[in-house]
């Protein structure tokens, strides 16, 4: 099986540790995952803002990068939803029959990470160890557009050493919504504030979700509110083992410093 990682533009540019975690996790499970370097973005920022013409070249780049793979795995429910549900709309708009055909071939092969693990690999216990107290937010597109259901929780429940606190009003949107967060920032923040409050109510150390874009929003609010709660992608939790706990402050090579102690220490 030829498996490609679709890392997503947000993870590529802002959260590379999530991509690295997917690679580590899949290799541990015996999947030799490839990263087609021609990939960029799924085009959702354009599509959801109404710029369909602008999305056409992005979708073309997408199908070109991922053609020929049996499975395309992505650590994002939202981007998987974009590929599976919106690329055909963009292709139809382009009037390019070749692009429509390419989309019809590629988009059904796109899997959100928990779908790939549970449905394709058939695993629930990925051998992870993560000795922390977490709470889990099911992101809207993974829940309602893809219908991942309880797959992420089935995976999380098998993680050794981890305690899971139930998130109140878990299924309500965090308010990110792509460009909604900028165009209607006041409403977005009002929604995010309630989500952050619910996260705080759980007493968890870490909020876990399957979409870093939503986590960037909720985590940004948790940070501004000096809540002492961090956010982490599902992939990073599942990639953790006794030997490879994720670094405390990822993506920076600096040694741990004293400022860490006042921002939510480890259990």
């Amino acid at each position, binding site marked *: 099986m030829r498996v490609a990682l679709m890392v997503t533009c947000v993870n590529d540019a802002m959260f590379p540790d999530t991509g690295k975690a997917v690679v580590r996790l899949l290799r541990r499970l015996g999947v030799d995952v490839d990263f087609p370097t021609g990939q*960029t973005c799924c085009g959702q920022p354009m599509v959801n803002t109404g710029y369909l013409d602008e999305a056409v070249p992005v979708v073309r780049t997408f199908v070109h990068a991922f053609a020929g793979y049996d499975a395309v795995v992505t650590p994002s429910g939202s981007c998987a939803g974009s590929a599976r549900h919106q690329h055909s709309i963009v292709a139809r708009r382009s009037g390019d029959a070749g692009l429509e055909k390419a989309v019809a071939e590629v988009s059904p092969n796109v899997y959100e990470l928990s779908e790939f693990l549970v449905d394709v690999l058939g695993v629930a216990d990925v051998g992870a160890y993560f000795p922390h107290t977490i709470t889990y937010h099911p992101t809207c597109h993974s829940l309602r557009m893809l219908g991942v259901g309880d797959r992420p929780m089935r995976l999380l429940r098998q993680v050794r050493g981890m305690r899971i606190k139930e998130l109140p009003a878990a299924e309500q949107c965090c308010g990110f919504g792509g460009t909604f967060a900028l*165009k209607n920032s006041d*409403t977005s923040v009002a929604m995010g504030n309630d989500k952050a409050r619910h996260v705080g109510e759980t007493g968890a150390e870490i909020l876990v979700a399957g979409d870093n874009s939503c986590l960037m929003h909720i985590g940004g609010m948790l940070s501004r509110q000096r809540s002492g709660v961090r956010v982490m992608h599902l992939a990073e939790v599942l990639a953790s083992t006794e030997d490879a706990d994720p670094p405390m402050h990822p*993506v920076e090579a600096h040694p741990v410093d004293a400022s860490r102690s006042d921002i939510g220490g480890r259990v």
Partner: protein
Amino acid sequence: MSATFVGMPAFPVAARTALADTQLRANLAHATGTIRAKRAKVVAEVDNWEELRLAAAGIKDNTLLHLEEHLVRLEESLTRQGAVVHWARDAAEACTIVADVAKSHGVDEVVKVKSMATGEIELNEALAKEGIAAWETDLAELIVQLGDDLPSHILVPAIHRNRAEIREIFLSHMAAAGRPAPDDLTDEPARLADAARLHLREKFLRAKVGVSGANFAVADSGTLVVVESEGNGRMCLTLPEVLVTVVGIEKIVPTWADLDVFLQLLPRSSTGERMNPYTSTWSGVTPGDGPQEVHVVLLDNGRTRALADDVGRQALRCIRCSACLNVCPVYERTGGHAYGSVYPGPIGAILNPLLKGVGVDAQTDSLPYASSLCGACFEACPVRIDIPSVLVDLRAQVVDSHRGDRFPKAEALAMKATALAFGSGGRLGAAEKASGLVGRLLGGGGRRRLPGGRKLLGRLPGPGAAWTDARDLPTPPAESFRAWWKRTGGRG
């Protein structure tokens, strides 16, 4: 009533005002939370709920496909049973028809059943210009009317008011409209309902003309259907000598068997009840019983425009249950006024642009963007309107309507630039190198860190300020994922 939605600002601006209203926020969180829980409970009781949703969507879609046929059949059956059928292309025509009926009977007042269609065409304002007072008799509509307020919810127009505010409105304004509220009125729901009952009964018994909408119009039997909870609707439908019903042309169902499906879906979706207390049906004139002069105004007012929209026409399936409002996280926080229409919430965000057309005014064009696309509305909709997909399609229509602008918006230029960067992996890699450099420059030196330890980026200028105004942002990493992959082959 002088309050009007005309001239409302675009959604983000109107929302800002609403979000700052703590009483509104508290009232809405309480009310939508309560009704959400009720709905979830009674929907879960129905084993074949999904089948009912599919059936309802199918019936509506098939009916809309042959709308002309069904409308003509409705007209024939109504006419045969003594009703007078009028066709109104727009709001002005519909209002004129109703006003002419009222004037032909020399009345200076009418009583009204709560009706979205008459709110849409601003019938009360049109009648007022003719010197005819239109009294709202639905309790919530009465509260809105007496308070010189605007409705903010399809089912519960006064959802933004709590009982203390309602008491105040009754005490201050009831006297000017008829029987005053008792001086010792408290905010107990039973006392408030009693004051409204006495105030309204006087109007029911006096009025010669009633005006209603209709939830459904059954084509083969020529039957109009009003579904309600209070019984005030039935008073309006039965006591006056003359009844005028304004009904959108999409409200039609072919047969009584079709109606069955919707009467199962509507109460559970709207009030969270297994069955609504009052379902009134009438087919033309019944000699010696009820109104002896019955008019039906079939209203287009943009519905045929919506019907012509390939993606958007599914909005015409809407049965005005308001389930989408109650589950919407945006509506829950902004309330209905921010949408600038009698149709607020997710359905309003698509229905208003579909009825009015996009690219005409900034307020209407802002509505398709008044959503985080979370999909809760689609999940709750009893007729399976895929509201998120319609929103995205309408956003494209808004953008397309501005493609010819001489001075493109900054957003349009930004989207073109982003699309260019996303055109190839190489270009994106170069952009990421630049952002990593910017991150190192801005993120340096003793600044705060996010929980977890990443360095914080400072406040952003320009459009980015909308983000960093309330949310911290980590500095871009020194090395992007693709740079890491290139350096290590994925084995770093």
